């Protein structure tokens, strides 16, 4: 049986100091198989975002174990985490977070350039075509609508063919119609690449599209509804 795509065991994390000290994650156990789409829901301050951050390797845990696609984060230094992240994890943010001074093509090519891929721009061109922006390669984010910018962000996330796709409120800054299109794109792309999807959202409809919904409150997982059968996690691919 292959390793889960995401494996959290007894994870604990406290942030801040003094009066501002907060126990953000309390003994969290979570296992996500490869190809699953998991919706993370819960009130503000429940720990959803922090969970995403430790999965992404952007925050260190105090205790417990975390392994992504079979790789234990405990043994990785900061730069090693960055390299692993660049090769295995894609991000889609609520505010898109594209580089304003780079064209759509350059934005999508950046993660491949960081990984030292020679064909970065060719692959970026292909991916932009697949998300319907083949005619907007040389446009800057300021010249695009919100929906178009999010498409570019999705292309950037998927161009490295990640094992894990993290989406943090991907439709939060979009109107309902555009948001729906973006949601379709994310789920379709995840399915095509057999990418595991971790999706944080306040949108119940969007959460309902996931194969599994995990609810958090006060740093704990309080509910875990699995709507479909678990799939085995794919083999770890290192950079």
């Amino acid at each position, binding site marked *: 049986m292959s390793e889960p795509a995401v494996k959290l065991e007894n994870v604990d994390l406290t942030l801040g100091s003094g009066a501002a000290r907060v126990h953000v994650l309390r003994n969290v156990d979570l296992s996500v198989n490869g190809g699953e789409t998991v919706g993370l829901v819960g009130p503000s301050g429940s720990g959803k975002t922090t969970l995403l951050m430790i999965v992404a390797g952007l925050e260190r845990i105090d205790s417990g174990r975390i392994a992504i696609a079979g790789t234990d984060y405990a043994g990785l230094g900061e730069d090693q985490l960055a390299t692993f*992240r660049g090769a295995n994890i894609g991000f889609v943010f609520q505010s898109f977070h594209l580089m304003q001074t780079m064209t759509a093509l350059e934005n999508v090519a950046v993660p491949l*350039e960081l990984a030292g891929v020679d064909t970065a721009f060719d692959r970026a061109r292909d991916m932009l075509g697949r998300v319907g922006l083949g005619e907007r390669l040389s446009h800057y984010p300021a010249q695009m609508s919100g929906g178009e910018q999010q498409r570019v962000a999705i292309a950037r996330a998927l161009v490295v063919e990640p094992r894990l796709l993290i989406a*943090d409120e991907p439709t939060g800054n979009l109107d309902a119609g555009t948001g729906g299109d973006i949601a379709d794109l994310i789920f379709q792309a995840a399915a095509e690449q057999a990418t595991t999807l971790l999706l944080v959202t306040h949108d119940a409809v969007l959460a309902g599209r996931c194969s599994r919904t995990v609810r958090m409150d006060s740093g704990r997982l309080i509910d875990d509804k699995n709507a479909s059968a678990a799939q085995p996690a794919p083999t770890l691919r290192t950079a």
Partner: protein
Amino acid sequence: MTPMPLALRLALRELRGGLRGFYVFLACIALGVAAIAGVNSVSRALTEGIAAEGRTILGGDIAFRLAQREASAAERAFLDRSGKVGALATMRAMTRRSDGAEQTLVELKAVDDAYPHAGELVLDGATPIDAALAEKGGVYGALAVPELLDRLQVGIGERIALGAIELEIRDMIRAEPDRLSDGIGFGPRLMVSLEALEATGLVRPGSLIRWTYRLALADPREAAIAALSAAAAAEFPQAGWRIRTRANASPGLTRNIERFAQFLTLVGLTALVVGGVGVANAVSSFVDLKRPAIATFKCLGASGRLILQVYMLQILIIAGLGIAIGLLIGAVLPFIAKSLLADLLPIAAAADFYPAELALALVYGLLVAIAFSLTPLGRARDLPATSLFADRATPVAVQARWFYRAAQAAALTGLAGLAALLSADKRIAFTYIGAVVVTFVILRLVAAAITLLARKTGQVRGTTLRLAVRNIHRPGALTTSVVLSLGLGLTLLVALALIDSNLRRQLTGSIAEKAPDFFFVDVQNSERDAFVAELARIAPDGAFQTVPMLRGRIAAVDGVPAAQINPREDAHWALHGDRGLTYSASLPDNSRLVSGTWWPADYDGEPLVSFEADIAEAFGLEIGDTVTVNVLGRAVTARLANTRELEWESLAINFVMVFSPNTFAGAPHAHLATLSLPDGAGETAERQVLAAVTATFPGVTSVRVKDALNAVNALIGDLAFAVRIAASLALIVSMLVLGGALAAGHRQRRQDAVILKTLGATRARLLTAFILEYGLLGMATAVFALAAGTGAAWYVVSQVMTLPFTPMAGIAAGAALIALAVTLGLGLAGTWRILSVKAAPLLRNL
């Protein structure tokens, strides 16, 4: 083709965003680099100009100068064999109108038929020189500068008296090719022939006259000049002549230009360091603005090192642009100086591009840009990516790792070390650098103290005042920027103004009060008693003093030839040129024995000498060591019997070396006399003394101390003006930095203003709060700058110059006003627009 490195590719893409937020950064770097490049390039242009004109300035390829005697027959024969000789004599003398109504000190130059020996003497009427100076109808001709004619109220064709004869002014001198080689003069130029000088009767035993013999060599190469110089020293080791070549035609002026340029470079460097605060602010703001981009790079797999490289490259590219602008300005300054200052400069500046000077400014600019960027860039490396996530709106404060602070300290140390290494006077350089560092550190502490005080003030009365006080200590407050940027520039200006004021006060005040009213030189032995009697007659209530005086040069110290001695920097002057020497049976007034003992009044043993204590220490002299001086071509060796402390600023008769009376027994010499009139004697009494002495003793040169002090005062004033221009540059940079910091804070202020207006605050209340905030900061900075500037000035005046120091209220008020005006002015410049902004659009986006 090799692809561009990834970091550079990403940096160039990021720079497409433009230079917004970097205009102050660019201006600070450009101004500082321009100042350093400009000062050094102009200095080099002047010294190159001197070198290029060396033959003209010197009047030949090599010159031999003798004090108080002409060349002997053997010496003259040697010179005649060696090249084409031009001879002249220079001395100070008194000239007067034939009716005796006016008299003045002149710098007399007596020339031979071959003059000018190089270059061109430009006369107003283009009269041939030999005709202008020849004897016609029993009267010799003379050439004078316009200033002399103004002082004596005479014109062309009229007669003046010099010594025992009358001269006819035949033309006016407009330009003298070899003026610089004579050094600083106290009087206007009067030119006569050598025959005329002979006829005046001014050349007497012991007269303070210099004879110069200039040679134009058949082989003018440097090797030939060096060989001749060596041959002269070998054949006439006791001649005591001072040899100059065209390569160092005016060493004193060259030295002073270089020294002054080095000091101005230090001041320019201060401007650059003040600009460094602007650099740090700009880079900090830049990093804050780029948080999302940096965080995104991290999410996409960029390492911390790559992020540092990308953003460091951007900073270096922008700094490079600022440096290029500064270098361009600095590079053209010699051309501008040559064109605009042609009438003011003593020589034609050799306008050219000077790569070494530009390279130095480039290095300084780069070091400052790197040093002040390292800490904020270090923060960029460690910025967390967490701010990208929807729930995390508040940016987390990040401190740079210790490595970056250490690197910053290393860069700043390198900067200080380079400045000190390149400075001729290391002591001044280290003192200056130390003062800047201490001031910087104290300014940081002052800013922290102001913030703490504001925080601890608690509940102050009045909402408006409370708003102002809170703005001083809230996160992101302007306090540190205002205090650092304005404080350093203002401290420098206050310090320089106080040093200048104290120095001038000494010159025109206490030194002028303590100093005698007149010095009289060239009082012959035979006329001494008559001279003293005349002084007693014309100034019965005055106090006068006479001492014997000869001229000589230090030839060796404890057996070591003078050319091989390298004393402390501040004692070098004692080895250059002739020194006044005297002898005395008793310890002179205004002197205090420091070590050794004074010789008995009837001492008749081996020659003994007393040395000024500070100079003796600088030369490493100890009691019992020997000192050899060359007087009138004879080497005289004396043993050091004691050292003395002198009160130089009293301007009383003081000599570095005083010999036992038997040392110069039989040597021809003159006397030096001083006269102090009673307090309140006034200008009229002084003029009467001058007229009487000049009429009765035409061979005696009278120097009115007031005139000499005024000349020095004027020179100091000019130098101080140049220094204040450079210091003002530091203040301008301070204002730029402050303006930048204020502009960076405006976004937050706009938001605050909108919210407060929504909650009911009127524009008047908000404006008052801003005025109070800026006013409090400006006043606090002024208080500190005043204290620090006064402290620095006190140290320089009392400890380095050893003069009494007086703090001046006018300077204090001026500094406070400048600080207030700048902070209020700049702060309020953008505030009015903030107060007028409409609330609705902003509220929608907050």
